[in-house]
């Protein structure tokens, strides 16, 4: 009976109050996300200048009302470049996450649905992939296929896939052994119908949240590859590449690295905050 009371208590308070209100972090993350999406779709709206426009006379300017984030060694406006770089960073992050999720979905479903032999094989394969740090796996892929934005994207996707596969496999196994799947069997439902109606929707619901959380990570990784010169190449306005370009002048012109870095961090944090918010809401829906 205490169980019921506790359940009722839990059910009551968190559902009525906090989850239906937006937290401060969620609001800030949402606003920043809105800015990023605007900058990605219509960069000219938030920063009318030319991200590649050179103005040697105003090189290395500190942040000022004229140049919010300062200028780089060729006098390009850092704010303009950061804004115009949003699109490619978001695109890389989203695409990489989708590739990771897609691959993970295939591997996880194989392992979770097709019986012990396939499960064993897929698991051993995943363990081999897990043995390499994710970034190393990405580097390996780039080594084979050569640097570039497209390869970096696929590489990051590949590197994140094993983690997603594991989670999806676990979800499928968990849901398949749950009491409501058994109840559906007792009602005389066929395995295929149970799979479509009960197992997949319940097992895959968390993927949306995972994906949102993953975009932040993917952007950081893609930027890391660009920083290493394996993704977008200078003078392209990409955050990781800008970070790398500023490295030389870090002692004299800190803003060249600071602001692209800040955007990488803020994007990752916002994606995570939004992902957590969605997760919390879905759990109580």
């Amino acid at each position, binding site marked *: *009976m*205490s*169980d*019921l*009371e506790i359940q*009722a208590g839990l*059910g009551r308070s968190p559902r009525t109050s906090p989850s239906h209100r937006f937290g401060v972090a969620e609001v800030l993350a949402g606003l920043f996300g809105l800015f990023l999406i605007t900058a990605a779709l219509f960069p000219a709206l938030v920063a009318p200048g030319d991200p590649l426009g050179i103005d040697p006379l105003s090189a290395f300017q500190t942040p000022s009302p004229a140049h919010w984030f300062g200028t780089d060694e060729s006098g390009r406006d850092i704010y303009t470049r950061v804004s115009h770089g949003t699109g490619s960073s978001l695109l890389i992050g989203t695409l990489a996450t989708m590739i990771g999720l897609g691959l993970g979905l295939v591997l996880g479903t194989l392992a979770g649905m097709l019986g012990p032999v396939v499960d064993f094989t897929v698991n051993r394969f995943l363990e081999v992939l897990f043995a390499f740090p994710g970034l190393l796996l990405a580097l390996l892929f780039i080594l084979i296929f050569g640097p570039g934005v497209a390869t970096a994207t696929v590489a990051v996707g590949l590197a994140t896939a094993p983690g997603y596969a594991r989670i999806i496999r676990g979800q499928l196994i968990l849901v398949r052994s*749950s*009491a*409501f799947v*058994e*109840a*559906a*069997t*007792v*009602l*005389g*439902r*066929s395995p295929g*119908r149970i799979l479509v*109606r*009960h197992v997949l*929707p*319940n097992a895959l*619901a968390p993927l949306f949240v995972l994906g949102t959380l993953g975009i932040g990570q993917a952007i950081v990784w893609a930027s890391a590859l660009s920083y290493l010169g394996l993704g977008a190449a200078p003078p392209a306005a990409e955050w990781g590449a800008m970070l790398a370009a500023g490295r030389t002048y870090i002692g004299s012109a800190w803003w060249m690295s600071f602001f692209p870095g800040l955007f990488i961090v803020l994007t990752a944090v916002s994606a995570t905050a939004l992902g957590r918010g969605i997760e919390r809401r879905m759990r109580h829906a």
Partner: protein
Amino acid sequence: MSDETDVGVPGAASVTGAGEGPGGVAAGVAPAVRVRNLVVGFGPKDGADPVLNGVSFEVAPGECLAIVGESGSGKSVTARSLLGLAGDNAWVRADELSLAGSDVQNLSEAQWRRRRGRDVGLVVQDALVSLDPLRPVGREIADSLRLHTRLDAAARHTRVLEALERVGLPDAGNAMRKRSGELSGGQRQRALIAAAIALDPPLLIADEPTTALDVTVQAQILDLLATLKRAGTGILLISHDLAVVGRIADRIAVLCDGRIVEQGPADEVLTRPRHPVTRTMIAAIPVDKPRGLRLNPRAAEPVLPSLSYQSGVAPGSSPDDCDRDTSPTTVLEAIGLVKRFTRPDGSEQLAVDSVSFRLERGTTLGIVGESGSGKTTSARLALALTRPDAGEVRVLGQAFSAVPEKERRALRPHLGAVYQDALSSFDPRLSVEQVLRDAVAGGARRTGRVGASAGAADRLRVLGLLEAVGLPQGLLGRRPLSLSGGQRQRVSIARALASGPQILICDEPVSSLDVTVQAQVLDLLDELQRNLGLSLLFISHDLGVIQHVSDQVAVMLDGRIVETGATARVFAAPEHPYTQALLGAVPRIGF
């Protein structure tokens, strides 16, 4: 209660006059606990209705007061308020709140910590989660000694051993080195009581201490509490079950909606209850109540199960089965079922050992046994959710367990199942309406081209099902998570009835429900059985429930059926010693 001015001034008028001054308290001895006009609420102070409103009681040393009430009546909040654990957002107010004669209102958290364990001990329902799984229980018990006394390690060891021996743990020296997971449920509960009494607190609060335990173990724990009581400990026993508290309580306080509606000597409350709530609770106890007797007198008008959920089908017959009346009278038969499980260490365990039973049409077969006796495995075998290692299950005279699932599916509509944990048997994404629609739709796919007429017919049948189990239509859009335990079980029964089954397999369907809610669900099952001619396989650990619902009963022990026969015969003259032991342990009112 909802009047805000009333909240501000919880006057003496809000206390029901019933037996406020307890009789048995000897003058001069400080009571273990004295509470006068306790008001507890959550959220903004004076903003919402208080959860407890003017509760007064006291417990003398060597006395047991039982606080009895349904879920949500405020029992646990009462217990926690006495420990300073009501919660961060709770406010507690009282004219008097004293433990062992000293006032405990407005104590700081540090001051509370010094009192917990010393002035008051707590025993809760679930010992498994209350003990640290990674530490030996002896160490857990020694903790309170370390915090509250200056004993050295050797002296603490002796005291822990003493405490464990007092609670009757066999081989205490060995037991104190075990972790909670290595002890059985009863042993864990004893260890928890040992931890609570290690410092000899004058007051022991036991919050549903036996609810999760088997009857025989429950009887032992209650005996232990009675022994402690005789040794001078004041006991505050909290329970939803009047029959359980009747065994040891000296006085009983009945709590309802945060108020004590009746308080008095135990035998007076049990035999001459004055308040309707108390009467309902007593009437709900199923022990010794013959079959068919309603347990819930409040709902006097019988719920008339309309058969409209079977619309399109002639009442009393299910689709594609016109010759069922000529079929044999045995609807479900288990023949020599055996099921083995492999333990983690590789050894084999016989969960079910040559179990045979027959369920006759329109009757109820009760299977009773304690945890681990193989009841649930038997139910799963009967539902063909797991494959027997030997033997077979036949449904309506046809092979059921021996055929592939594909063939079995044709027979599945004849079998409905109701589970103990109704909530987890529902897809968490679906609303009540979707759950029931899925069930009435049968195996048929009703997507796309099958028109709105089928959908409308389904909706009618869903409404008919709801009516049959006595649920309002307003619940259709809700998720099962937001329903009460009783409502969830009703939805679960409605789903089981959707296919028009002849057999209902109920695995502990009322075990997680309050006694009063249990009574309503049992009444519902009884009505449905009579009106629909259902045959019930009813599995429970509760002999009282089994006695009330069953025509035939089978007693299980260690995977075997040790005794079977007509319920009246088995309960009147049990032959097997185990049945006799079980029956002796059943808590009942009156002696």
